[in-house]
């Protein structure tokens, strides 16, 4: 009986990991408007980490880096050709205009910090 329960528990735990990290959504997206959007970089996460923007419209993001560890020092927008160094305790403004609708990942250089930029039509 115990054997059974422990195995079942383990499998459930694995299913939970798969669901939580891959299958479930990443929470509500933050819609970027005309004003700059502040993104706080601290404790291993971008907050907010999911951003929505309109294709063809300039998007201004202000990264406020609080985490002094070097992991946080750079933000890279893959496929958009943007990379920027972030200073601790200071805002770094990034302006970009995504042309194509789609999902773009932005991460630190080691990909521990992860965020998604969703570009809609």
């Amino acid at each position, binding site marked *: 009986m115990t*054997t059974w329960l422990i195995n079942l528990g383990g499998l459930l735990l694995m299913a939970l990991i798969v669901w939580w990290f891959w299958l479930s959504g990443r929470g509500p997206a933050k819609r970027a408007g005309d004003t700059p959007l502040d993104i*706080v970089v601290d404790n291993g996460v971008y907050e907010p980490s999911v951003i929505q923007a309109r294709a063809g419209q300039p998007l201004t993001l202000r990264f406020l880096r*609080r985490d002094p560890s*070097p992991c946080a020092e750079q933000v890279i927008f893959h496929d958009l*050709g943007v990379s920027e160094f972030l200073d*601790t*305790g200071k805002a770094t403004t990034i302006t970009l205009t995504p042309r194509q609708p789609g999902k773009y*990942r932005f991460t630190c250089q080691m*990909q521990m910090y*992860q965020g998604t930029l969703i570009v809609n039509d």
Partner: protein
Amino acid sequence: MNEQTLPIQGATCQGCARKIRTALLAVPGVSSAEVDLEQQTVTVSGSADRAALRDALTESGYAADDTEDAEADAAACHPAPQETRTGGAGPTQKESEHLLAITGATCASCVRTIESALSGVARVHDASMNLADRTARVAGNARPQALIDAVQAAGYGASVIDDEQQADQQREEQEHAHYRELIRHTVIGLAVGIPLMAWGLAGGTMMVTAGTASQWSWLAMGLITLGVLAWSGRHFFIGAWKAGRHHNANMDTLIALGTGAAWAYSMVVVLFPDWLPEAARHVYFEASAMIIGLINLGQALEMRARGKTSEAVRRLLDLGARTARVIRDGEERDIPVESVQAGDLLRVRPGEKIAVDGEVEEGESRLDESMLTGEPMPVSKTPGDTVSAGTVNDSGTLIYRATRVGRDTALAQIIALVKKAQGAKPPIGRLADRISAVFVPTILLIAVAAALAWYNLGPDPRIVHMMVAATTVLIIACPCALGLATPMSVMVGVGKAAEAGILIRQGEALQTAGDLDTIVLDKTGTITEGHPAVTGVHTIDSESESTVLTLAASLETGSEHPLARAILAAAEERGLRTETVTDFQAHNGKGVSARLDGTLLRLGNRRWLDQEGVAGGLEEQAEALGRDGATPLFLARDQQLLGVIGVADPIKQDSRAAIQRLHDLGLTVVMITGDVRTSAEAIARQAGVDKVLAEVLPEDKTREIQRLQGEGRKVAMVGDGINDAPALAQADVGFAIGTGTDVAIESAAITLMGGSLHGVADAMAISRATVRNIKQNLFGAFAYNTLGVPVAAGILYPFTGWLLSPVIAGAAMSLSSVTVVTNANRLRLFRPRDPSRDNEESRGES
């Protein structure tokens, strides 16, 4: 509708910002509220009165008053207590200082006006203006834009001076503070872990017996270890929790789960030993403490090593001058370089640095431009020449007028470009990227699977083995090594290239440059000096050399073409006066034509004149000119040939040696030119290229590159970046070659700041070394993880009885990322060129 800005306090996250916005929008008359977390202000539009807004802020808990009592608020929305942010300028307490460059201020009364305008801005404590260098220092927490607006409202201009060097120094201090903090955490972790481990190794029991004193002493140890986890390991736990909430998993997740599991299991052993079989009553407090200590140590070492990877950018930043000697109203004074404005007249004395980009107005000197172009020889400068910020004046004195200042100087643009390129990813790193993105959740799955396997298949005490295997898997897995493998090498490689005067704009180019097999060199300005000169004039019997040269010069008066300039220079040298022509036309790649006194003059290549029906002649003389490497230009009046002028462009001193280096790297070297075959071949012989594509029209260059690519070759094109832009874009890697800093940086994947072709070979050598370094790193990181994780899971146990200790896993994990960064740092020692060979070359040439 009006806009007002109110100070806030303690808002540290988006959650706070949301609360503030909600509170303010509830006030009647407020149409929008924008929170600035950095400046700790909120800007409210609408007709609400200030007192009502302040009340709303007070109610929400974020109102700023003079007593800085924001700790409670900050803690309320940010569970991380303040001390995790050592070095990070906390937004609530620190007063900043802005330096403004002021324009339009001419007298002492302006100073008073500007100072009082600045003092009137909210949250400004002090403002003082220096008329001599036209700067204003403002202390307080005001928004920079508000300061600029205030100065403009007073009738002057202002812009914020960003002091890059000061920012750099601040960054260094912050990094140092973070380093010291990591070392403190290491000491605490190891101070608890090492004695415990020594006790175990010395034969002390790590087992708990219920009801004895050992249970109580282990309970005390458990609490001390909890202290270590909560103090030295807190950033891992907070990071893990925050990431987990965002459906993310990172390195913190692994460390927190691993050390947390070891501690929790040990506490169960201590508190409820009866729950477990006797053989399983073993504590692992030493593992938790040791791992926390070791991983902090690894991060500290990694940070140290990382600092060196950005050395190249720091060195470029150091090139900038701190002050400049400006001549205003006939007086000379030293002012901070940030307050130099375009149009200012500046003096540079012997040994000083040029402060901003400009044009020489007076004086003669030589400038050492090696730090920008990689070329060791000083360049002479006379009035009319351009000078670049960061270059060093030799022995003369120059007065120059500032043309580009601040972020517009070539040096500033180069720094920006290098910083940007250092974040680029060559394709080789993509696989690692894809793996990194799913790495941590996969490791979590493997840890659970390993635990289950031990439970079902392993020997007793199974629960201990389950715990040890799962913990060790979590701790040994190192996403850092994988994630750092590519970026660290790219950072060093791009920086290394910048030091050699090579600007790499794209990650792809960094990788592709090493795989090239064919290189197409434009002739003019690339292999040759690009400054052609007339080498001979031959005429038909009835015309004199002077007439032919005069007519040719008259024809070319309006042209900017290098060949035209050579003819004009020759005419000027002989004191010939040109005449005015009409209806001038340039026929791309063929020649030029114009009308003079009712006749049609044409100057161009033989083929074109043939097409136009001009009579033949002077073939022998033309061929003789061509054999010496000169381009024969035929001059015709109507259908009659008058003469032929030879114009030659000497090859650069080091072109032959550089092309030999390209051969040594295994490349086929092709020269492409619009010149006639004979003269092209003469240059080709002198330069030592393998193949010549002569008489190619500019627009056909792209097609030639395509043709070579069609043969399955990887082709690089080297050209001047302006005329050759389409061909550079078509090539697998385009190299724009410049002389000095006046190059179109945007036009090619790689820009050579110096004019030497050695830059191409250097770029390829650096590319190969960088890609090799990346491969070593990737191989190391993959091998480490693919061997380490199964061993940690216990795959060797059935054969050898080995099960890795979590402490060893912690040490291995710390070392693996340090190794990657250290290996990337090895690239710094790479030398693209053998200096001893360089010396031989220059001796051979002199």
